[in-house]
Structure formats: structure tokens, C-alpha cells
């Protein structure tokens, strides 16, 4: 019982990170129908920025803020320079471009900061069961999710963004600057991705540090339904707890395979994800 509680609590805090990544993927997927495989690359550069800033100034929080800014800026640039030109091409083109960007960013990070792991600080005290850092992660992701909900449901910007995502051509006819909305979406998503990166990186940073977490982020997004913000958050926490149990009872090396099994099972039962109401596909 003791162990179970421990595992669940661990799962909640790692689930927060998966939820953040899933949210970020979901926003971009909704807006541009692209799964942003470059996400860990963008977040990686953001986290390395924080690393350098913190090392130079001694302030964790300055690094933290700059990481979010850099992450968002990179997302905006990626959308403008790389995604927009391939938007109208095949699904494959966009996937390949984002993968290329991932390789490029990871390679550049390795060239600049080397492949050696550097120690990377936690935001707050990280010792003990459900530490201050864990609480911070859960709270940060909770606030983010709530903020997104308010943004999309209740603000004109959110309404425009949704319109641009659902029916870009119609949105344009009613005066929505669709391209701008997509860029804003990528920016917001990349800020959230950078947040997830900052939470996921400690204790060490190296170029591949986010690969594993990203895989779980994708898993969470897929089981939650790439179209659904609640699904992304729920998917993140469910997956976090589930994988924590797998890791505790079956062994940490099997966690990734468990994620694969979960994805395959969920998608073969519900191709639109676990938490979306099944509906007729739009063609």
C-alpha cells in the first residue's frame, strides 16, 4: 500500500510533464494538423538557454523565464520559416520537416554544449515524497491548462484561433488572419513545451535528455486524442500514473514498451483517442 501511494504520487508529478507536452502537441495539431516532432528539440534549446543563463547569472528564475521566451520564439520561427511552406503538401512532408528540425537542433545543441551531461538545477527543493518541485510541476501545468481553457473558450483571440483551426478558409472570409493565428498557436505551444522541458530536464542536461519524455508526451496526446485539451491533460496524468506503476512493479526498462502497448491498444479500440467522444470523421 505504502509503495502504491508512492508510485501514484511519482506518477502524478511526471504525468504533469507529459500533460504539458501533450497539450503543446495538441495545440499545434489542432491548428496546423502537424505533429510537432521538433518539440523536444525546441524545448532542449530553451533548457540549454536556461542552463547558460543560470550558470552566468546564478538566478534560476531568470533562466526559467528566458527559456520560455526562447522556446516560444523558436516555435514562431519554425512555423513561419519551415512549416508554412509545407503546409499544403503531404502529411509526410510536415512530419519529415519537423524531424529534420529535431535532428538539426539536437546536433546544434551537442555542438555548442557537448554531449556530456551537465548538472541542471531543480526549481525548488526536490527531496522527499511529493517535494516542492513536484508540487510546482503539478501547479504549473494545472495553471497552464486552466489558462488555455480560458483563452480558447472566453477570449476573442481564442475564438479566432479555434475558427482558424477548424475552417481556415471560412475563418479568413470573416476577417480572421489565419496565418497569424497559426503562428500564435505555435508560439503558445512552444512556450508550454519549453515549460515541460524545464520540468523534465533535471538533474542532468544532455542533447537526448528529452527523447524519452517526449515519447510519453506523444503517447499521452494520442491516447487523450490529439484534438482534445482535456484529453491531453487527462492522458498525461493517466499515463504518468500508469507508467509509474509499470516501472515500480515490472521494471523501469519496460516503461517505454508499456507506452507502446498502451498506444496500440487504445488506438485500435478508439482511433480518435480515449477521451474524445467518437464522432463521424470529417473528410
Amino acid at each position, binding site marked *: 500500500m505504502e509503495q502504491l501511494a508512492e508510485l501514484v504520487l511519482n506518477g502524478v508529478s511526471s504525468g504533469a510533464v507529459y500533460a504539458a507536452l501533450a497539450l503543446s502537441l495538441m495545440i499545434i495539431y489542432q491548428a496546423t494538423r502537424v505533429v510537432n516532432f521538433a518539440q523536444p528539440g525546441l524545448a532542449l534549446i530553451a533548457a540549454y538557454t536556461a542552463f547558460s543563463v543560470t550558470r552566468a547569472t546564478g538566478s534560476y528564475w531568470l533562466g526559467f523565464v528566458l527559456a520560455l521566451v526562447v522556446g516560444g520564439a523558436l516555435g514562431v520561427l519554425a512555423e513561419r520559416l519551415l512549416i508554412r511552406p509545407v503546409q499544403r503538401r503531404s502529411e509526410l512532408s510536415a512530419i519529415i520537416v519537423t524531424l529534420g528540425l529535431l535532428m538539426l537542433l539536437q546536433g546544434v545543441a551537442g555542438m555548442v554544449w557537448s554531449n556530456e551531461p551537465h548538472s541542471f538545477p531543480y526549481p525548488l527543493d526536490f527531496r522527499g515524497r511529493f517535494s516542492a518541485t513536484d508540487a510546482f510541476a503539478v501547479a504549473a501545468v494545472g495553471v497552464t491548462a486552466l489558462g488555455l481553457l480560458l483563452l480558447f473558450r472566453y477570449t*476573442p483571440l481564442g*475564438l*479566432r484561433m*479555434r*475558427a482558424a483551426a*477548424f*475552417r481556415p*478558409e*471560412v*475563418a*479568413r*472570409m*470573416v*476577417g*480572421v*488572419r*489565419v496565418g497569424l493565428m497559426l503562428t500564435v498557436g505555435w508560439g503558445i505551444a512552444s512556450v508550454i513545451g519549453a515549460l515541460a522541458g524545464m520540468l523534465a530536464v533535471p538533474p542532468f542536461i544532455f542533447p537526448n535528455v528529452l527523447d524519452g519524455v517526449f515519447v510519453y508526451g506523444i503517447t499521452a496526446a494520442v491516447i487523450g486524442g490529439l484534438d482534445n485539451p482535456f484529453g491531453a491533460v487527462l492522458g498525461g496524468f493517466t499515463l504518468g500514473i500508469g507508467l509509474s506503476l509499470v516501472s515500480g512493479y515490472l521494471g523501469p526498462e519496460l516503461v517505454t514498451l508499456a507506452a507502446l502497448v498502451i498506444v496500440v491498444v487504445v488506438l485500435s479500440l478508439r482511433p480518435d483517442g480515449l477521451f474524445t467522444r467518437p464522432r463521424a470523421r470529417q473528410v
Partner: protein
Amino acid sequence: MSAPAPAPPALEVHDLVSAYGAVRAVDGVSLTVPAGSITAVLGANGAGKTTLLRTVSGAKAAQSGRVLADGVELTRLPADRVVRHGVAHVPEGGGVITQLTVEENLRLGGLWRADRADRVRAREEMYQLFPVLAERRRQPAGALSGGERQMLAIGRALMARPRVLLLDEPSLGLAPMVTRRLLRLLRELRDGTGLTVVLVEQNARGALSVADHGFVLSLGRVAASGDADRLLADDRTRHAYLGF
């Protein structure tokens, strides 16, 4: 509307060409739409009516030619800029966004306008104009019937307080009675607010009965044009292009 003599027409199209690849769906169309008029654009399936409207509103790029509204050049502007110049487009099928609620769809139509108070006022006017929409404002637009969707689409376009309204087959799939109501409504709008309407229709007889002028398209070109009564009376045009 008592227009001062040299006022430019609400909409002018000169030699417009608009193609899909090698298919010139609009092949050198010119037309003039006087302010405050209702102008019908008629023609068989595939004549190029939808393409004409889409090109005018900037939803599709023109190959060549010009489009002006109130004398202002709109030719190369994208759709989101065209609507800011007072030309609103209700696309074929209405283009209601089914995932949004009725109210969100309506709000969307006026969102680009800075005058917040007037946006709210316009919304209330739309609810008065289409009371069904008011009853269902919180429901997803996907739950509306075809006729209700057309009303929502028109309401959304009117939220922009346009000077020119481009309507693409608003009667598509509607019962004849509803169609008649809709056409009468257009007339009232024109009379009440001075709105200029360009009405694309399959139902030529109905359209010409409310329109002042008509253009008949065939294979992307203007095959006939003139006052609505004259087109209605002209047997040759009717038989050749309008099929009644």
C-alpha cells in the same frame, strides 16, 4: 438610397480571369453592381458562379483582371482584408463552423471591428432578425437545420456591417417556402439599410423576382445581362441558360 450622381458603383469587376490549373472557370468577366441594388448572378452548374464570388472576395486568387468596391482596389487582397473593406461573403453551403456554438459563429463575424459596443449591438440585431438563433445561441452550430445554418451564415456576414453582401446559393437545400422568406428578407435588408446584394442562385426565377439586375454566366463568361424584368421576359435567355 439617393446616391449622388458620380458615386462609384458598390462593386466593379473588370475582365476577371480565375482558373484552376488550366481550367479557366472565370474567363474574362466584367460586371457592375450599383450601390443599394440586388444583383442576381445566374447560370448552370459549373458556369463559374462560385468561382466568381470566391475570386471577388479574395478566397481565391485571380489570374488577371480587377475588382473594386466603392472605387477601392481589392484585386490582390486576401479574404481577411477584403471583408475589412465592406465586402462580406457567405460561401456556398454557408460555411457555418459546426464545432463552434451559434453565438460564437455570430461573434466571429464582427470580431475584426474595433467598435466593441457596436459589435454587441449588431449581435442583438441579428437575434432580432433571426429569433431562432437567439433560442439556440448556446448550442453547437452543427445542431442547426440547413435553413437555420443559412440564417446563421447570413447573420454572421452581416455582423461585419458590410456594404456589399455576396451570397452563394443561400437557397441550397431549403424548402421553397423558406427560400421565399429568405429572398424577401434580402429585399427588406436592402430597403432598410441600403445593403448591396450579389445573389448567386440556381433558382433563377426566384432570384430574378427580388433582384434589380441579373447576369447570366455560361462557361465562365457573361452570356446575358440586364434588368431583372427584362431577363425574366426574354424567352431566348430563359430557354438557353435559365431553363424555365
